[in-house]
């Protein structure tokens, strides 16, 4: 059985290894978090919770074939399951976090999309981020999120449907702003004649 000194050496070596890893990966973890959270303050809370979890599970994480994938999985699951650390809870209870869904409405299309993405349920948003930001396929996304490929597909489809719906009024409104000639003589509410 290891004595105190050996334990202490193992603990220090573990800490040093963890610190090196997290210091190097912090920028990429923050980038992934901000895409998920759509807000830097929430993103930093999420990363804080993630690296705390990572510390607890460092033995398993460092032994994993792909430590980056392990860390990314913790972050995405933490986000998707809304499992909040004491740290994140504190921030939320104080009401210091701005609600992205309640952000000021802007009629610019890009901001409409941003608002619509921010309003998606966490698991749908996570599915979109894994597919379209991390460029993972359905199976990889399912493995990382800890669900079935079918769930990833349905979550992605629902999210895209919601986003299309959110952008549709804007597209229609754009059309009405144009002259009848520019808009192909269609106006808001008219069904295009494909005949």
């Amino acid at each position, binding site marked *: *059985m290891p004595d*105190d000194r050996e*334990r*202490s*050496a193992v*603990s*220090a070596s573990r*800490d040093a290894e*963890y*610190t090196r890893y*997290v*210091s190097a990966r*912090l*920028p990429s973890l*923050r*980038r*992934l978090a*901000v*895409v998920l959270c*759509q807000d*830097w*303050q929430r993103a*930093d809370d999420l*990363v*804080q919770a993630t*690296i*705390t*979890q*990572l*510390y*607890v599970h*460092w033995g398993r994480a460092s032994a994993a074939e792909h430590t980056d994938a392990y860390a990314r999985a913790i972050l995405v699951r933490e986000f998707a*399951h*809304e*499992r*909040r*650390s*004491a*740290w994140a*809870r*504190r921030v*939320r*209870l*104080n*009401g210091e976090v701005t*609600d992205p869904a309640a952000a000021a409405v802007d009629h610019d299309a*890009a901001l409409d*999309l*941003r608002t619509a*993405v921010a309003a998606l349920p966490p698991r749908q948003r996570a599915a*979109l*981020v894994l597919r*379209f*930001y991390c460029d993972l396929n359905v199976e990889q996304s399912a493995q990382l999120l800890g669900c079935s490929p079918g769930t990833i597909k349905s979550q992605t489809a629902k999210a*895209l449907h919601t*986003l*299309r719906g959110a*952008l549709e009024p804007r597209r229609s409104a754009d059309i009405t702003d144009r002259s009848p000639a520019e808009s192909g003589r269609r106006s808001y509410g008219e069904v295009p004649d494909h005949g």
Partner: protein
Amino acid sequence: MVEPQVRALFAEQASSEPPPSQVSLELARSQGRRRLRRRRAGLASAPVLAVAAIAAVVLTARPPAPGAPARSGAASSAASGAVSAGDAPRQFSPLIAYASFGWLPAGHPFVQGSSDKTEVSLYANKSVFLLAYSADHPCQLTTARLDCRTSTGGERESIIGRAPAVHGHAAFWTEGHGFLVWQYARGGWAWLQLGPDGTGGREQRAAVRVADHIRLGAGAATPIAFPAQLTRIPRSWHIDNVEYQPYAGGVRASNYDLGNGPGLFLGITIGPATAGSTCHIAGALKPVHEIINRHRVIVGHGPATKNELADQELCAAHADGLTVDISEIGNHPAIGVVSLFTRRYRLLGPRPKHWTTTPIR
């Protein structure tokens, strides 16, 4: 097609210039260590447990020192052990805030502190982090390094040079994480980091100024106020550690953990409710909505498995003006979270004047 627009949005967000990081590696390590300790304590009661985990508990569960509080939770436990002036407390009481920032750079407000038997920490926004050990967590200083490691954690840093004295005590700069370290009292060492790197001249000057204004040790002790009080719980239950936040005129508990040695872990998160307060319980615990004492609560239970103890959790977004979350780990807890919340947890409301510094009566 909306996919290309989504990809473009994500790419743009990821490539935008990030604001300064508010993530603290030190806080993560400190909280992570605490969770590891809880886990070791909790797992020790599981029959499937290996000898290694039991050994870990033996190593962490030292008998209380003479003069140290018998039960963390009573008002009399504010004593920090018999120490003479100039000595660091042998152990800290988790119910006391032993450190405070006297001065912080603009834009770095104090947001959180924590206290357990052997270490206290303070965290101010944007990565200002203070960690101080009690005398029971010994440190060895050599010309090359300061080593404060024990079997349950600690720090070791290489010394790179002498820093200006802090309160008349010798202080040093370390490499790697850029700490300013000094012996705040005989037998007790403190570590201060300012900013993620903390090694630039500007950060060093600010660190020295922050350190000079820090009050630390028994002389700075401030009781932590609790917005609720536990009553009629087993005498063996005690508070192991407390995280606290500032409120006008003092500090209040925001998270605290109770234990009774191996076999119990009870964690409580509490704070004044706001209009936007919500609570969630992880899906794995099969959340059920109930009304208890006229409060809407969510209760979840997770069964024991071969490798994990059973767990249960209760949360209420608004209960007498407070938001409460109680989680408990243990296969056969003496008191479950529902019983605890219903009959043994007295909510004191959102007004600080009603709060108590005696969280267990």
